[in-house]
């Protein structure tokens, strides 16, 4: 499955992910209390420059990714104008655009594997609370594997319905779709158990680690 990372490398791709996340947090925290639209407009400038520094293709893609937010923000702005609070509305909208586009920038320049490594690190405290060490990574892999499969299955169910009925697709099709997900889950669970399960993975790993020595 596609991730939102842009394959074409830029200098920002080479920065460590934790540094980018830290800078993103700082930028967002600094911007948070600002209420003057002129300052916020100025804060958009470095973000635009960052996008531009990664090349024309990258900047274009970034603008494209921002589109849904821009529509939403436009509606909010119109609402603000109607209720007679133009300056306040401008500030709110610029703040959202600046923070969202910077956050998108981090996503676009960070590989999924690196992000997942950060997540695994952040999840470490939960191991003490009973989260098996390998469960999170395994579950993430399952979601990535099964999403396109369910999407395809939903499309097939939809086509099967349309081939047999003159009426519009019914939400009733969600029952077989959910059932197929349930059956898949059962099969995955059995396959997993047959291979030693999630809980045993840890002990096996330590065994194989010590084996070569």
């Amino acid at each position: 499955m596609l991730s939102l990372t842009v394959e074409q490398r830029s200098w920002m791709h080479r920065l460590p992910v934790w540094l980018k996340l830290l800078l993103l947090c700082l930028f967002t925290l600094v911007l948070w209390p600002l209420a003057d639209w002129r300052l916020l407009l100025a804060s958009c400038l470095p973000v635009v420059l960052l996008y531009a520094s990664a090349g024309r293709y990258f900047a274009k893609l970034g603008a494209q990714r921002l589109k849904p937010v821009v529509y939403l923000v436009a509606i909010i702005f119109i609402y603000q104008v109607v209720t007679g609070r133009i300056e306040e509305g401008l500030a709110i909208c610029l703040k959202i655009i600046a923070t969202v586009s910077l956050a998108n920038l981090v996503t676009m320049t960070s590989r999924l594997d690196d992000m997942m490594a950060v997540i695994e690190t952040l999840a470490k405290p939960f191991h003490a609370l009973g989260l098996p060490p390998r469960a999170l990574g395994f579950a993430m892999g399952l979601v990535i594997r099964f999403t396109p499969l369910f999407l395809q299955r939903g499309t097939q169910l939809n086509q099967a319905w349309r081939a047999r009925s003159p009426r519009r697709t019914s939400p009733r099709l969600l029952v077989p779709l959910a059932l197929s997900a349930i059956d898949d889950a059962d099969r995955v669970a059995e396959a997993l158990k047959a291979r030693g399960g999630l809980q045993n993975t840890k002990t096996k790993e330590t065994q194989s680690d010590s084996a070569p020595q």
Partner: protein
Amino acid sequence: MERQVAFIALFAALVAALGLMPQFMLPFGVPVSAQSLGVMMAGVVLGARRGALSMILFVVLVLAGLPLLAGGRGGLGVLAGPTVGFFLGWPFAAYATGLIVEKWGKGNLLIAGTFASIVGGIFVLYLLGVLGMAVRLDKSFMEAASMVLVFIPGDVIKAFVAGFVLQGIAKARPSALLSRG
């Protein structure tokens, strides 16, 4: 243990697939994304704790940069947008929905699922979503609420569909309903 992880992960995948699938038209021709319906289904089928875990997994993957939200959106930008409360509200919505289905005694599962989905998938979700909007847009709670009221009728229909799905699964695979013991 393995079964739990598999169910949690596969329902997160189902929610993702529902968001990317435009074909599911609701009755009366409301062309809305089925993604929030998926949240209700996760709660209804998996129960409170697993439903919430499933949605946490989904939220984490979207933040990691997978385009799993309706319309292929995703990434950290979601956290900075005005809809952040709805997005982060999903685990809570699934938890509330699942809790009601778990506590529901004997009786009609269609009603149980619909009622639970209305409370979890609409009440709880909108409460958190509107709070997020109010904070992000610097509005009062009521003002923010007035901006999203138009979506509620569609969500009531989705809640009914979630109840229907619960009933259907109870008939076909009663053992798979983790929410009903």
